[in-house]
């Protein structure tokens, strides 16, 4: 299936989760999201978990975590 991360199309196995796609997009970005220094969200700005499940054609966006956003 194909998932877009920051506008780039990532081809990945069917059933991949958010963390799998992010790792394929950028190992460094995956590490920062795991450390909760950065956020991965849907195109509407809602944070999604690394275990979040995906349907082909979805889009994800990474960004810095604002100070006010919860880290749990």
């Amino acid at each position, binding site marked *: 299936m194909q998932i877009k991360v920051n506008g780039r199309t990532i081809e990945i*196995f*069917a059933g991949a989760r958010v963390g799998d796609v992010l*790792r394929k997009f950028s190992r460094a970005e995956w590490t920062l999201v795991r450390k909760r220094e950065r956020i991965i969200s849907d195109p509407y700005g809602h944070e999604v978990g690394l275990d*979040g499940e995906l349907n082909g054609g*979805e889009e994800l966006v990474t960004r810095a975590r604002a100070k006010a956003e919860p880290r*749990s």
Partner: protein
Amino acid sequence: MRRALSANPGLRLLLCALLAVLVRPSCASVAPAPAGTRIVIFHSNDVHSKIDNFAKVAAIIDAERKSGADVFFFSAGDNFAGDPVIDQADPPGGPMMELLDRLGLDVLCLGNHEFDYGLEILRKFPARIPMVSANIEAPPDTLPALRPWVTLNTKAGIKIVVFGLIQIEPGNGLPSTHPEKIRGLRFSEPLAKALEMKELRSAGQVMIGLTHIGHEQDLLLAKQMPELDVIIGGHSHTRVDPAESVNGVLVAQAGGDNAFLGRIDLLIENGRVVEKKGRLIDLSQVRDEDETIKAMIAKFHQNPALARVIAKAPLEISGKHALGSLMTDAIRQVHGLDIAFHNNGGIRLNRLPQTITLHDVYTLDPFGNQIVEIVMTPAEIRSLIKNSWERKNDIDLQVSGMTYTVRTDGAYQIRDIRLNNPDGSPLAEDRTYKVGLSSFIASSYSFSHRDPGRSLYTTTADDLIRYLESGIDLGMYRDVRRAFSEKPPEAPRN
């Protein structure tokens, strides 16, 4: 009359006063205190066996119930799969079912991972809790608690209609779980099925879609179905805070892993929802805990099932090559694959004791990576091995179903990679092989493969447990080695 009023100021004053008195009752009807029914719905999704925050959830729900409001608790699916404390309990998922029952769960929308332990286990869910999913057809007695929708009643008799939807994969039309676990069930496209639910609008004053289709699909559902008051979703682990209004429908989802509890507030007046809002409660900021639930959780953490002996070996199985051979054999045998790989970084013990428990398996392999099947040519397999070698200039991938030798020059640069069948003959270059990898390798190693692959919806630990429980002779893992490297001997010094 107008002339009489302007001519007589006293009469005008008298009429104004009279009007003020007459108007007062209607002014009172728009006064701030609403005379409607207040409904509070707490919701969670994608808990994935993370039970620790349930003591806080219980405290929050109980406090609200004591306030006198009509309080409900909904689950949008995927309570199972993610922690051996729950997944390896006896029965699997038992503690989760017990906790959800004690929390007073009112309705459960089945998620794809509700099926991970199989239908027999799902049937053990407390009969009090209805399961909803409109796009699942189950033969009689397969899942007696399953229905397309349910109607819940408030104390004042307001009816809340709740229907469920589960995601399916576009490729095979099945939810994302192992196909063996859902044998006998039929699934249909969720958004198409939802349209058939429109007729339920007249069956209640409140209509809710409790879904496990992911937030993007929830947004599409809201756009096609303004008859809904609220959609409470799951599957994508999306933190929607506050809940958003789309086409007049309030759309909510509470992240995942039991880190947040969703709360929806509805105000019903004259038989319809006149006010609705939703937000998430960050459970890390909650201090109050229900002591009974807390004690139950502590008991569940001492899961005796994890001490269960699942295999005995004639000797300890030690070293990356032996342990990696065992783990890859498990992947290959369980799924009937030609070849399987596992990376050294995913082997977290140096040795397995002779008496192997479930706890040992989860210590050896704690990551919960899924198995991915990719159809590969020998050239593609070489590109995988090449990338693995270049990470540390050393053997990194353990293998089953073949052996390989990386030949390098004196500076560890690869000269060639030889692939052999277990009998020593070379792999056929003109055919493809069904290769099993962990999702970690599939997503973080750089290698060529035309087939994008597919998850087989088991974890590497699941497969190892199943393999060990099959009673195989573990003596074969003594001194086993299937991955080799060769470099030319150093030139003699003068």
